[in-house]
């Protein structure tokens, strides 16, 4: 099958949906400019015109209301934020209005609104341009939250999100944009709320979100060379969660690590750990362990930033601890970093 990047997959999904349904439109700060949101909105202005692809003032709060109002009046807006952090200015609309609109109107009218938000990292993005916060939105009933990892998932889940009659937030990690993968040319849906086994394994389950799947895969390779067969589960959808795929895996392996691309405290990793500890009670051979950002704002200096983020090494070390095995010599491993980014096929 054809190989394309994550970024092109997002772009293709939007184009195909905009061709299919004239009610779909895309907007946000910088959406039609020459940078094209890192390329993900390429060709939209040219193909669909300025009414269906437009720039906005810097006014996240009202622009979110715009999406809600348009959505309940028959359109299917896609609102794009080049950084998740800017979404926080729209928190009132999201938590008080968008999420409860359908419920408050007696379940009669849906809100087919898609919000894309990019998770920043690297080159000193710092603490105002690198949050993820998917758990914050997943906590609120009435919002669907997804974190596609592969190009295929990016396309299929984006299309599902656009067709969904309810609000869907898409969190896209910036480092995934360069990733390539096999993606069908024709339009297809990947259902929301379904997790995926990224790699089969029998010794331990690693539940990973977003970019952490890349780290988990590298960790799994290293572990494999050392005789450990790790299974990796990508929930893909943060809310509603596919609990069963995780429970089934942990029931087999007896061990579970959650590697989330976010802070740990009160985050999605807590949810998964709590759920697994409950549903796999008695089958767990070790406590569920959580991996995530350091509990600090994200610093700018590269070496501190590298400390802030967990990576394959963090995962390997945790697996060693969990399984009680000897420390693996990692001195010859090359880990992903800003300079050594993962750009190949996933």
């Amino acid at each position, binding site marked *: 099958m054809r190989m394309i990047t994550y970024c092109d997959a997002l772009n293709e999904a939007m184009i195909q949906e905009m061709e299919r349904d004239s009610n779909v*439109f895309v907007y946000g700060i910088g959406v039609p400019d020459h940078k094209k949101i890192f390329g993900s909105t390429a060709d939209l202005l040219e193909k669909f015109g300025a*009414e269906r692809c437009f720039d*906005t*003032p810097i*006014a996240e*709060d*009202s*622009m*979110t*209301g*715009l*999406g*809600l*109002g*348009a*959505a*309940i*009046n*028959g*359109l299917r*807006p896609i609102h794009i934020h080049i950084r998740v952090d800017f979404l926080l200015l729209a928190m*009132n*609309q999201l938590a*008080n*209005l968008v999420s409860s*609109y*359908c*419920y*408050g*109107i*007696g*379940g*009669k*009218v*849906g809100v087919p609104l898609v919000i894309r938000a990019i998770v920043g990292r690297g080159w000193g993005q710092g603490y105002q341009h690198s949050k993820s916060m998917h758990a914050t939105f997943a906590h609120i*009933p*009435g919002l*669907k939250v997804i974190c596609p990892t592969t190009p295929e998932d990016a396309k299929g889940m984006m299309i599902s999100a656009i067709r969904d*009659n*309810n609000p869907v937030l898409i969190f896209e990690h910036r480092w995934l944009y360069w990733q390539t993968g096999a993606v069908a040319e024709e339009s297809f849906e990947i259902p929301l709320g379904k997790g995926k086994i990224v790699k089969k394994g029998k010794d331990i389950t690693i539940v990973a979100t977003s970019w952490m799947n890349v780290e988990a895969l590298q960790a799994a390779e290293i572990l494999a060379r050392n005789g450990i067969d790790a299974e990796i589960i990508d929930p893909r959808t943060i809310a509603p969660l596919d609990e069963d795929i995780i429970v089934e895996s942990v029931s087999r392996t007896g061990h579970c690590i959650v590697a989330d691309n976010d802070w740990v405290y009160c985050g999605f990793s807590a949810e998964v750990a709590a759920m697994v500890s409950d549903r796999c009670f008695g089958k767990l051979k070790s406590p569920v362990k959580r991996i995530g950002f350091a509990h600090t704002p994200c610093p700018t200096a590269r070496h501190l930033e590298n400390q802030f983020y967990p990576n394959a090494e963090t995962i390997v070390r945790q697996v060693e601890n969990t399984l009680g095995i000897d420390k693996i010599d990692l001195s010859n491993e090359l880990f992903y970093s800003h300079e050594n980014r993962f750009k190949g096929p996933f």
Partner: protein
Amino acid sequence: MKSVNLDLYRTMYLIRKSEETIQKYYAEDQMKTPMHMSMGEEAIVSGVVGALNLDDQVLGTYRSHALYLAKTGETDLFFAEMYGKVTGMAQGKSGSMHLSAPEKGLLCCSAIVASSIPIAMGAAYANKYQKNGKRVAVFFGDGATDEGVFWETVNFSCLKKLPILFVCEDNGFAVHTPREHRHGFSSLHKVVSSFDCNVFEEKSTDPEVIYRTTQKALSTMEQNDKPCFLRLHYYRYLEHVGINEDFDAGYRPKGDYLDWLKLDPIRLQREKLGTIGFSEQQILELEQSVDEQIARSTEFAAESAFADACELHTGVFI
């Protein structure tokens, strides 16, 4: 204008009587939802909604009894919702603060100050996009102009020349805080006028005046493609939330109320009907039919069942 005046009276009478009915029964403790009463603003809502087309759309706040009744004319779903019954417009889930009737053009009411204003803008964007000719009118209090999102919305609506009416129902207070304690400008009119929009202001309790002003706003908007801002003054008769007066609280003098009461919209309009040729008999018949409608609806509400407990979980998604 004769029949318009009758319609305006009917709407205002329906609103006033519905709210008096709430006052009458509220102490029975069956309507377990906080009441932000419309009393005093009937002329504004009736006049504006009366001038809109039936398929134009409106949005409001927690204080939207008047808006709901003016836009829908119906009271069954209304009272059932107040009573928290399954026959209410949202099966009791939304209560007094979140009235809605999407099929009749009331898109939503929100209890977060100013929050429905950008939603109205989105609805207007959709209407323009779909070229369906519908206009949107969003109702909000003067307090909503304190919020940044109001200014963002005015800005973008003007930029995109959206078919939207901003209807500021200005009672001079946000809860108990007068505008002088909230505004760093002397004239709201002047500030909004500096945006690319049409601005109108009225201090009348005559719904016909409001109706004509709204008509003028709509035709101006049609001509120059610019959004309209209507600042319409009124006096809130009752406490911010609840069914009683609150002049003993001391934050506003009762004298103001008495001055406004002399111009009570419902009473004046009733008198006007007489002067423009309606007989007392005709008026009484109209009133009676509204009274009966309300009586039927409250009975219906009281007799309706509560939603099944499992309904708690339905309707989060569609």
